[in-house]
């Protein structure tokens, strides 16, 4: 398709863009030309295109209304490629680039003809909250019938369908002064702060600093035009290294203690983004002082038919003309309640746009403005209002009601309007400041700042540059500098709420995107929605993607009027982050994939991977789960691993176990407090199984503890428990027992731990050990010795979690893999295997050893778990001692850990399966307990399980049932030790 090459509404000699920068883009498949520096909206307008979107509820045709972030209508989808589709992009903000492809949204089949717009004809049936009143019958029909219909009609653009390939960056930053908004106010504040050698960050959401100065054709500052002055200040600041200038950067959120989130758009304006750049960059700024210079946002007029394409904000029209050299039409009407729209009208007139008339709701208007209009031959109607407009896909006429009540018709192709300027209180309010109503100027203004924060400029209510500059200097503690300003236009004046006699006839839109009319707001109040928060939620006013930047004040005024209450008594709704919609990507930034969470690997991990291990995630760790050989499934592999360990031996990577070194003269005393066991009698060189409780008496963690010397313990914890156990210990040590001479150090990662288990364990390691006699006599079960293994310093434990003769070799981590391989060189020829956590689980279950977190769940006491023997009765105190004495923890019928055997030995119970005594009873059944662990035991040739069962200890031999969807399974209650009950193997 060839582009129409002229841009009929581009005005020669206006704006900062050059024809030289002509580029092409498409909208709904049609190719157009625009200029570098355009926004998508200004480029479309240059081509005479106003219709850019469809509204949310009624699917009404909508044109672009604003030139900035407040735009509610012109939302488009932009796709660089399939994976890079972004919905709901504001055409007024999106910078044009060569080849940009945009599509309109929320319409079918096309923007010009949208079937959905029947909603508009039906609209009388859909007032605010209509869906609460209907769609209730028949009962089931809501989610089956009505809801799917409503869901399809609602929503705006389409969500992306593929994983986002773009990169997003994060940066934490600090500064003395953060200035948000680079208009006249922000620029001067930055200049003054920089002079005082403070570190400054100045950000503005636009591609250039300057704010409204870039849109104003008349103003003169220090002898320069607005844009030139802004440029000169920027040039000055660029030279300084204590200033960071961030354009295209939005301050979206103001958090505690001057933490402000900024998001910088880095590549969305580029035709071909360089691969090394992130799409966006998140700045998390902590500032000593924050200066808010957000400026003001112009309001639209609320009158019937105010939403036709071609009807725009006056300030926007002025911006498009003076920044982009684009006019909104050939013949414009003007509808205003303040002075700034006159400036816009005069600019358009100069640019060759006919001004049909200026309609001003005020009866008093400044003589100078009237004179200037007269001089240009522009008719001004004061005390008048626009009562209606005509035109479908574009406005083509307006009806004016004059002060004397007569009606006049005007043919127009555009209408610029201004109801005045609303100071932007967003960030100030987010900083938890409370806006204060100013009766004189009928505006909310910032009050006291609860944080070290100052608001300046238009967002602080300043209406002329002189005031703006004074505030800016003061904000950063600089003395007022005399700055000459000529031809500045005041922001004063304006109306809030409906205007004109006919506001109740037709649709006077308050919130464009959500199709909220003045009528809807009145209806809400009539139905008893007296709080502005109710009005908001009932009508959805202010809940669209522009978050009420245009609509909130109008909505408030209409509600207040209905309630016959002063505006401040009705009040504003809450301002919340983000100021403008902010991508999830910018929040996530780097933390995707491998950076989402650390993935912790042991020094032996790679060996396991090279040897085909399957891994299981345990807390942050990846642990070798099982080592399948060719053709083996998990079940077969685990069976083989267990068999091999029991008959020969196996090697197991236990490095992830938490390790804490407890050192000091009071080490034993401290252990006595932290663990239920007694530690006084334990001799150096001996080890012991310890249980740790919370103060409430429930099991918190467990592990084997080796006593290396009188004042040094090597404590092990569960893999997942390591950090919280150390924290728990530090807590008691620092705050309850600060006088104890004992200190803690995490050694989890200092040691690689290699378990060698099975009848041949000693044979495997003996030749590798030096400096210790590991014979059964000298080194019995539950011993520990510091020696050398493979020539490196080691801590060797004689312990077993499998029930077989077992050793655990701890060597410094850097040697872990080498030692493992040396052990493996000996183990493999002897027929031993490497085994993983699953086989370990099976074997420990065969022995009735518990896994904290699997056989206990935070409601289990040592007594429940059959570990009463590990609780020292005689000790005066240990954490959890008192908790254990609470009535319910001593009551009969608590769930106790027992073993289960299925009557049919082949049936393996499901972990988590529930247990009852009578499977025939009706639902809800009385559940006695549940299966905590369950495995197929190849060694025993039958299934085994552990379960927590009410009064379990007294049920030995009882038959109980596990009701499954396909019938109940009969089980017998047994002890928890299924294998080698006498423990002969352990001691072998």
């Amino acid at each position: 398709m060839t582009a129409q090459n002229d841009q009929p509404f581009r005005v020669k000699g206006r704006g900062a863009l050059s024809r030289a920068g002509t580029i092409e883009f498409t909208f709904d498949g049609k190719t157009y030309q625009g200029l570098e520096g355009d926004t998508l909206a200004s480029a479309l307008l240059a081509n005479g295109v106003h219709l850019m979107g469809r509204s949310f509820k009624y699917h009404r045709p909508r044109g672009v209304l604003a030139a900035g972030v407040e735009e509610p209508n012109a939302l488009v989808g932009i796709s660089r490629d399939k994976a890079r589709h972004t919905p709901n992009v504001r055409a007024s903000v999106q910078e044009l680039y060569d080849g940009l492809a945009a599509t309109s949204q929320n319409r079918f089949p096309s923007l010009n003809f949208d079937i959905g717009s029947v909603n508009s004809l039906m609209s009388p049936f859909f007032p605010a909250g209509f869906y609460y009143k209907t769609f209730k019958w028949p009962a089931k029909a809501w989610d089956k019938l009505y809801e799917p219909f409503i869901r399809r009609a609602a929503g705006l653009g389409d969500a992306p369908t593929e994983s986002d390939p773009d990169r997003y960056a994060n940066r934490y930053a600090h500064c003395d002064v953060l200035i948000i908004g680079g208009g006249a106010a922000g620029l001067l504040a930055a200049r003054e702060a920089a002079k005082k050698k403070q570190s400054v960050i100045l950000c503005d959401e636009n591609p250039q600093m300057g704010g409204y100065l870039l849109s104003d054709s008349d103003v003169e500052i220090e002898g320069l035009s607005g844009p030139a002055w802004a440029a000169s200040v920027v040039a000055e600041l660029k030279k300084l290294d204590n200033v960071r200038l961030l354009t295209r950067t939005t301050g979206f959120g103001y958090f505690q203690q001057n933490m402000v989130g900024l998001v910088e758009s880095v590549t969305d304006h580029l035709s071909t983004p360089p691969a090394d750049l992130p799409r966006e960059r998140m700045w998390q700024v902590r500032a000593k002082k924050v200066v808010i210079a957000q400026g003001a946002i112009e309001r639209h007029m609320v009158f019937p038919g105010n939403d036709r394409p071609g009807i725009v904000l006056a300030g926007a029209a002025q911006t498009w003309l003076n920044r982009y050299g684009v006019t909104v039409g050939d013949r414009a009407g003007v509808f205003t309640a303040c002075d700034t729209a006159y400036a816009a009208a005069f600019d358009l007139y100069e640019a060759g746009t006919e001004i049909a008339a200026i309609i001003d709701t005020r009866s008093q208007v400044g003589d100078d403005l009237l004179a200037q209009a007269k001089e240009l031959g522009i008719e001004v109607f004061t005390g008048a209002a626009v009562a209606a407009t005509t035109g479908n896909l574009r406005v083509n006429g307006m009806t004016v009601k004059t002060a004397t009540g007569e009606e006049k018709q005007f043919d127009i192709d555009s209408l610029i309007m201004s109801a005045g300027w609303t100071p932007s209180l967003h960030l100030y309010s987010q900083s938890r400041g409370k806006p204060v109503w100013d009766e004189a100027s009928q505006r909310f203004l910032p009050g006291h700042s609860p944080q070290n924060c100052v608001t300046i400029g238009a967002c602080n209510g300043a209406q002329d540059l002189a005031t703006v500059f004074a505030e800016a200097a003061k904000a950063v503690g600089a003395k007022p500098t005399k700055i000459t300003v000529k031809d500045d236009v005041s922001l004063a004046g304006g109306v809030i709420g409906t205007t004109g006699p006919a506001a109740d006839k037709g649709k006077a839109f308050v919130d464009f995107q959500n199709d909220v009319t003045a009528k809807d707001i009145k209806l809400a109040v009539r139905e008893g929605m007296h709080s502005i928060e109710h009005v908001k939620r009932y009508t959805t006013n202010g809940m669209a993607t522009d978050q009420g930047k245009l609509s909130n004040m109008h909505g408030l005024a209409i509600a207040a009027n209905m309630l016959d209450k002063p505006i401040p008594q009705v009040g504003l709704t809450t301002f919340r982050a983000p100021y403008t919609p902010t991508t999830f990507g910018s929040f996530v930034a780097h933390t995707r994939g491998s950076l989402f969470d650390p993935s912790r690997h042991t020094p032996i991990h790679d060996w396991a991977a090279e040897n085909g291990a399957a891994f299981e995630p345990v807390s942050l760790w990846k642990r070798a789960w099982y080592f399948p050989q060719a053709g083996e499934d998990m079940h077969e592999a685990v069976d083989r691993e267990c068999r091999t360990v029991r008959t020969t031996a196996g090697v197991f990577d236990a490095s992830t176990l938490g390790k804490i070194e407890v050192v000091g003269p009071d080490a034993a005393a401290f252990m006595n407090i932290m663990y239920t066991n007694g530690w006084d009698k334990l001799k150096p060189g001996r080890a012991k199984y310890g249980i740790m409780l919370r103060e409430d008496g429930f099991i918190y963690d467990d592990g084997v503890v080796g006593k290396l010397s009188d004042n040094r313990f090597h404590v092990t914890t569960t893999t997942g428990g390591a950090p919280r156990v150390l924290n728990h210990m530090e807590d008691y040590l620092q705050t309850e027992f600060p006088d104890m001479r004992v200190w803690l150090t995490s050694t989890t990662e200092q040691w690689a731990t290699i378990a060698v288990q099975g009848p041949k364990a000693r044979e495997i390691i003996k030749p590798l050990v030096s400096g210790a006699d590991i014979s059964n006599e000298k080194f019995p079960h539950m011993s520990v010795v510091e020696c050398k293994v493979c020539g490196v310093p080691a801590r060797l434990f004689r312990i077993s979690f499998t029930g077989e003769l077992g050793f655990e070799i701890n060597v410094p981590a850097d040697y872990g893999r080498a030692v493992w391989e040396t052990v493996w060189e000996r183990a493999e020829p002897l027929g031993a295997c490497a085994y993983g956590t699953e086989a370990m689980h099976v074997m420990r279950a065969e022995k009735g050893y518990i896994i904290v977190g699997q056989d206990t769940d935070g409601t289990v006491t040592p007594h429940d778990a059959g570990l009463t023997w590990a609780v020292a009765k005689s000790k005066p105190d240990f954490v959890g001692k008192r908790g254990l004495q609470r009535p319910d923890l001593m009551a009969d019928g608590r769930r106790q850990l027992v073993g289960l055997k299925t009557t049919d030995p082949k049936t393996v119970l499901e972990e988590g399966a529930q247990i009852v005594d009578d499977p025939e009873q009706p639902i809800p059944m009385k559940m006695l307990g549940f299966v905590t662990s369950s495995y197929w035991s190849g060694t025993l040739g039958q299934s085994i399980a552990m379960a927590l069962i009410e009064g379990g200890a007294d049920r030995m031999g009882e038959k109980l049932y596990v009701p499954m969807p396909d019938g109940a399974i009969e089980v017998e209650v047994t002890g928890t030790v299924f294998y080698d009950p006498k423990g002969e193997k352990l001691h072998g």
Partner: protein
Amino acid sequence: MLLIHCPYCQEDRPELEFANAGEAHIVRPKNMDEMSDEDFEAMFFIRDNPKGVNLERWRHAFGCGRFFNAIRNTVSDKFLKVYKAGEPRPSDEEIAELLK
């Protein structure tokens, strides 16, 4: 993200370095056996949870590792004072002063 002054590091640090550790000045009696069930409940479960001035514990977990106490306003989330573990609970008069 809060900014928290650590009384041991004597510096403002980002909240990410800290872990909140619940209500401060809960005494764990020396002889717990003599505690009634009521006392145990009060110690382990009952919390002041005030709207306003809260005395709470923090641990500088990713810093000096120390537990310490803080007085913070739970409405404004502003810290009024931090002090080392073991230091006595500031008097109500002192707290009233801080609020001014």
